[in-house]
């Protein structure tokens, strides 16, 4: 019985993988499964939740900033992903910015050091129009040049994201969209959609008595995941190490339990 069940499971996962392969448009002459290249986030719980065992590289990922106050958290999350990508892959990342969206601040280069991103591995492109950014992103993916393409976009739509998703898939390169959620939403063809919210930090150790802010704490929500299920995690950005981890369960201090209500 147990044996039967595991067989069943493996058959289902095999089928899933094949469907995924067909969805990704990878045509193989043999009926054998080619695993998609993935980016491990470095967080076990998150990787095991994602359908391919990590973020699919040849796909579009979207990160939504729910309120202006969450901009820095979302940027930092984005940089953490980028950092683990640049560690494993060669090349330079292209980050397209919308110059109209800079009222929430410009990226401050010294923070790249903290996130473990070498400054010569990131190039910014600053444009005014969303359509130009989408054009540049698509062009960059087609060129196979960069290691990763990021774009800060205020408005787009299903068709445009589908174009990006296809381009990313063909190039086998990740495309990441960072967008301010308060400026509007859209139906998207992205493989994953995330929402990053900042929450109160837990003062740790000595800092607790001194009332100093601790490591940044975020609520990371995967609100859409193709071939997978949504999920919600509490994450901590380790200031010293410069990486992401799941937040340790709160022993005391401010209540950090995840609330189901998502603004």
């Amino acid at each position, binding site marked *: 019985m147990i044996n039967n069940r595991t067989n069943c499971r493996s058959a289902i996962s095999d089928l899933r993988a094949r469907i995924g392969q067909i969805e990704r448009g990878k045509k193989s002459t043999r009926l054998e499964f080619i695993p998609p290249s993935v980016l491990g986030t470095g967080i076990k719980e998150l990787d095991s939740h994602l359908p391919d065992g990590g973020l699919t590289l040849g796909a579009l990922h979207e990160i939504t900033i729910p309120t*202006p*106050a969450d*901009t*820095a*958290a979302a*940027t*930092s*999350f984005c*940089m953490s992903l980028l950092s683990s990508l640049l560690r494993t892959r*060669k*090349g*330079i990342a*292209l980050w397209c910015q919308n110059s109209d969206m800079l009222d*929430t*601040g*410009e*990226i*401050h*280069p*010294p*923070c*790249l*050091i*903290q996130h473990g991103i070498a*400054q*010569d591995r*990131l*190039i*910014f*492109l*600053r*444009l005014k129009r969303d359509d*130009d950014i989408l054009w*540049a992103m698509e*062009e*960059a993916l087609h*060129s*196979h*040049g*960069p290691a990763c393409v990021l774009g800060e976009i205020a408005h787009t739509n299903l068709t445009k994201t589908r174009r990006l998703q296809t381009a990313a898939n063909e190039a086998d390169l990740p495309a990441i969209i960072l967008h301010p959620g308060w400026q509007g939403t859209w139906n998207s063809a992205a493989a994953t959609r995330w929402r990053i919210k*900042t*929450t*109160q*930090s837990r*003062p740790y150790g000595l*800092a607790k008595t*001194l*009332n*100093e*802010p601790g490591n*940044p*704490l*975020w609520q990371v929500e995967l609100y859409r995941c193709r071939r997978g299920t949504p999920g919600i995690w509490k994450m901590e*950005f380790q*200031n*010293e190490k410069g990486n992401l981890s799941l937040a340790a369960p709160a022993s005391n201090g401010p209540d950090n339990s995840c609330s189901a209500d998502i603004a």
Partner: protein
Amino acid sequence: MHNRPFALVTERHGQAILFATNAIAEQEGLNPGMKLADARAIFPKLTVEPTQIQKDKAMLEKIRIWCSRYSPWTSSSEIQDEQEKEKKDPNLILEGPGGGGIWIDATGCSHLFGGEEIMLTDLVNKINQIGFVSKAAIAETRGAAWALARYGQNNQKNWTIAPLGTVRETLAPLPTAALRLSSTTRLNLQKVGLHTIGDLLKLPRATLSARYGTTLLKRLDAAIGKVSESISAVKYKEPLYVRISFSEPIGNSEDFRAALEKMLILLCQKMESQGVGARRLIFTLYRVDGSIEQRLASATHPIRDIVTLKNLFNDRINDIDPGFGVEATTLFAERTEALGDTQAKLSDDRKSNNFELLIDRLTNRFGNEKILSPRITESHIPERAGTLSSITEKHRNADIKHKNIIRPVRLLYPPEEVETIGLVSKLLVEPPSVFRWRKVVHEITLSQGPERISPEWWRLGNTGTRDYFQVEDSRGRRLWIFRETNQGSKTTRWYVHGLFP
């Protein structure tokens, strides 16, 4: 200017001296190298102009290029060896009749013009037509030709030909200056009564080199043909310029593309033969009505690949307004850089190359200033510590040591002033407990600081001393705020400068 004494003046050791004089001035007894004050004493109405060596050189080079119609081997003769080093003063290279001249290696060329006499007459006449007085000479050695052109007995047509095998005899009556000697050597020779080349030729060689150095002997040998002296000719460089004219005016973008491709094929061939790649290309379209339209494409590295170069123009051809039609197009490689023959690689290098090509495409579409690269500088002032600047600017990234300092992810330019609510201590350095920023009230629950950052006094436009705090409000928003105290008015203001994750 031709009918009255005229001289060019330069400066040597703080004195104005004559650099060159015209024929009438020479008749008055004014010679190059003379002090201007002395010259004015002899001839008070002397007209003078400052010397422009660089322009002279450029003009000489132009004439040299023109002279390549007589022979492929030409070079402009500035005295370039020992004498130049002796003088140390580069301004004096062209001094006196030893100045600018052009060597033409006419071996085997003169018959094309109908003989040496006709060739020289033609040369002198043509240069005369341009507006210069010239003297020319043909001899079997380079040194002899140089001497004869300047000191020889010219005929009315201003040229001399030394018959074959008579170099010694022809040179013998000429002054020693004709050997391209420095003024000190010349003077020393004069002191002992050696005035002509013939005088030198009679003397034993050993004593000459012992007294006057090896240069004199070298020059003498070269002039009479004992040692050979070659002309280091400047090789002709084909301009990287292509033009196509159309019998019927063209007017649609597909035709422009085809013309561009055709020109690129020719241009790339030219560039390959010169071993260069294009950094900047100018594509010009000439309309029937005489107006022109230009498209410029630049690259971050030299390129010689037709497809890549074509792609640089790709997005900028559709918006060309053909007007009444385009009758001709040209393509010019304005800036080039050496590019060796490369072999296609199969490894990762291709990827970095792809990235460079992508940057080129983006640059050509959006402009240089839109593509930015993060720069981190060793500075405590946040605005200076990290900037985004154009990738074209050369910059040496600082080796950052302070790795553990936590800095915000996003920084506001400029910092935004906040409205503090309630009581803020003026004596204690602590952040306000409540403030309003962008119409939102922030209640500070946690704070870390102060971190005092003083302005860098050696820079202009200083800000005041700032005390930075990392604060967190009741909703988990982490901000970087600072207090700036103005010493003069004793006012304290609070600003938000950055956002922490």
